[in-house]
């Protein structure tokens, strides 16, 4: 027989108490595991949606002649007519190390043109990419699908008195108004959009681009790293992260994470308190038994070993049960949270669950065990 044998026997004897203690700690672990999973999933889901909802990286030529207010953000250094960006750069962007994080690449060519006697900025775009990037775009009429179709911003359409189906001449080329954008509140309202190949052709720009917008999925990637990688691939370009978008996203994520941490800490503290009270009460009940151990030659460290071993077994069991409960809970809560999948149930979560369980279980037991180990053996002789 060994000292740990006594701990196992005691746990078996007090089956109900042992089971309840395991259950209590397991619930705390389960809540932590489920919260971690749900939080990560919410972050991931929210991040993906934000990533897809507009560009977060802007690529411009390096020259600094004009400034452009784009998307409510001041973007310096746009030189219209610059030919430092080109179609071949699109492939380079998609070839960076973190290419899997690149969701959408949207090339644009800006050119000022005289339309119906008014100066208007014409933007050549890839309509498919543009609509994918700007999911908030709504238009009357139809989506442009022919090479000579145009989409007019609401302010531009009002100024030029355009409606769907109207004909329009730009740089001596004939176009048809396919649709009018409903008001977006952005610079897009003032623009006339034509297809990128058409713009390059009518303004005689070859394969030149004025700007490239990139939407990077940055749940797990450092945006600065992607910016640096693109910068390396395009040395003549100015690559900027749209901090406002990223910081808004990070702020929301931090709030979700902080809420999760506060809740987890509260639950874990509650579990620690429960184990502490349980152990203290158990020690009082076992005073005589501990006195017997001491009387027959157990040292303090042996008594401590018995009690901490019991606590370790409870903690390990709670870790297993809690992890399984946590996964199940997260999956059950998935539809309520509007999530399609649950993130974060890898080896790190398993290790965290066990580490948390053991830390809480054993640390809450240290003082009661220490107190028990200090009991004098005469306690066993109180009956005399």
């Amino acid at each position, binding site marked *: *027989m*060994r000292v740990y*044998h006594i701990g196992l026997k005691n746990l078996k004897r007090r089956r109900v108490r042992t089971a309840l203690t395991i259950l209590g700690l397991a619930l705390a672990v389960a809540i932590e595991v489920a919260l971690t999973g749900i939080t990560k999933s919410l972050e991931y889901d929210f991040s993906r949606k934000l990533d897809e909802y507009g560009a977060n990286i802007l690529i411009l030529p390096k020259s600094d002649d004009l400034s452009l207010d784009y998307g409510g953000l001041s973007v310096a250094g746009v030189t219209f007519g610059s030919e430092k960006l080109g179609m071949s750069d699109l492939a380079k962007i998609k070839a960076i190390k973190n290419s899997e994080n690149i969701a959408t690449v949207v090339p644009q060519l800006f050119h000022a043109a005289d339309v119906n006697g008014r100066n208007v900025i014409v933007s050549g775009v890839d309509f498919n990419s543009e609509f994918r990037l700007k999911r908030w775009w709504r238009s009357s009429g139809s989506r442009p699908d022919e090479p000579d179709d145009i989409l007019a911003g609401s302010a531009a359409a009002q100024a030029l008195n355009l409606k769907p189906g109207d004909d329009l001449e730009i740089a001596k080329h004939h176009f048809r108004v396919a649709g009018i954008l409903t008001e977006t509140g952005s610079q897009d309202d003032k623009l006339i959009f034509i297809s990128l190949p058409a713009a390059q052709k009518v303004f005689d720009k070859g394969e030149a681009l004025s700007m490239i917008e990139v939407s990077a999925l940055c749940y797990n990637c450092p945006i600065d790293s992607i910016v640096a990688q693109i910068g390396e691939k395009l040395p003549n370009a100015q690559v900027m992260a749209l901090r406002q978008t990223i910081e808004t996203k990070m702020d929301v994520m931090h709030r979700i994470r902080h809420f999760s941490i506060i809740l987890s800490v509260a639950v874990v503290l509650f579990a620690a308190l429960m184990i502490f009270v349980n152990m203290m009460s158990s020690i009082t009940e076992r005073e005589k038994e501990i006195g*017997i151990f001491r009387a027959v030659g*157990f*040292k303090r460290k042996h008594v401590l070993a018995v009690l901490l071993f019991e606590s370790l077994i409870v903690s390990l069991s709670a870790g297993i049960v809690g992890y399984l409960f946590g996964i199940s809970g997260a999956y059950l809560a998935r539809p309520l949270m509007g999530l399609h999948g649950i993130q974060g149930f890898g080896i790190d979560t398993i290790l965290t669950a066990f580490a948390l369980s053991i830390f809480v279980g054993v640390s809450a037991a240290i003082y009661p065990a220490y107190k028990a180990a200090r009991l004098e053996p*005469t306690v*066993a002789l109180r009956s*005399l």
Partner: protein
Amino acid sequence: MSLIEIENLSKVYTIGDTSTHALRAVSLQIDDGEFVTVMGPSGSGKSTFLTIVGGLSAPMSGRVVIDEIDIYSLRRDGLSDLRREYIGFVFQSFNLVPYLNVLENVLLPLAPTGMQAKKQTAVAGDILTEVGLYEKAKHLPGELSGGEQQRVAIARALINDPLIILADEPTGNLDTATSESIMQLFKLLNERGKTILMVTHNPGYRSYSTRAIDFRDGTIVGDDMKYIPQMSADYREGREFQQNIWTHD
């Protein structure tokens, strides 16, 4: 030199403003192989005397020397080792661990030692056979009669082959017939060389002992020594071996 040398033991219990002198400068020598019954009315200090001799409670003053070891000069862990190696305790209420079976209760003092499981079981098996409980090795204490439980307690006290057995009213919870059989067992152990110090209220048990001591108000008022038994050669050899281990450790 005697196996147990007790010099000027004093102990005072203080509760609030009230102090009670449990022991007043008690001195005594107990030789190897003696069977000493300690008698006296309740509150006379006999149980306090037993706990101090057993290394369970330190005196306020005085010394207890067992086998030339001043036990209260030892560190706390050293005192635990001494209790395990030198002393076997038998209590009135048996003090068995209820969730350990008979075999495990007997093996309890060996749990902190490094003795191999097979050897542990073999030693416990021999002792359980000796006390007539080998067949009940897997029973829990609650499944045994009072007499059987006390036999388990005696087996536990013997598992480390201690020099001394300290028994506090070992028959206090047993009927007359069972008490007699337990006393016979103690007598047998004494004849095999164990030194026994037993607290009892029953004057009839003086006949089993070699010496009877009477306590009153924390002092010894009577010491009736009948004879010093002859130690067997085997026992003396084992005893010298044990003493050497402690002397040279």
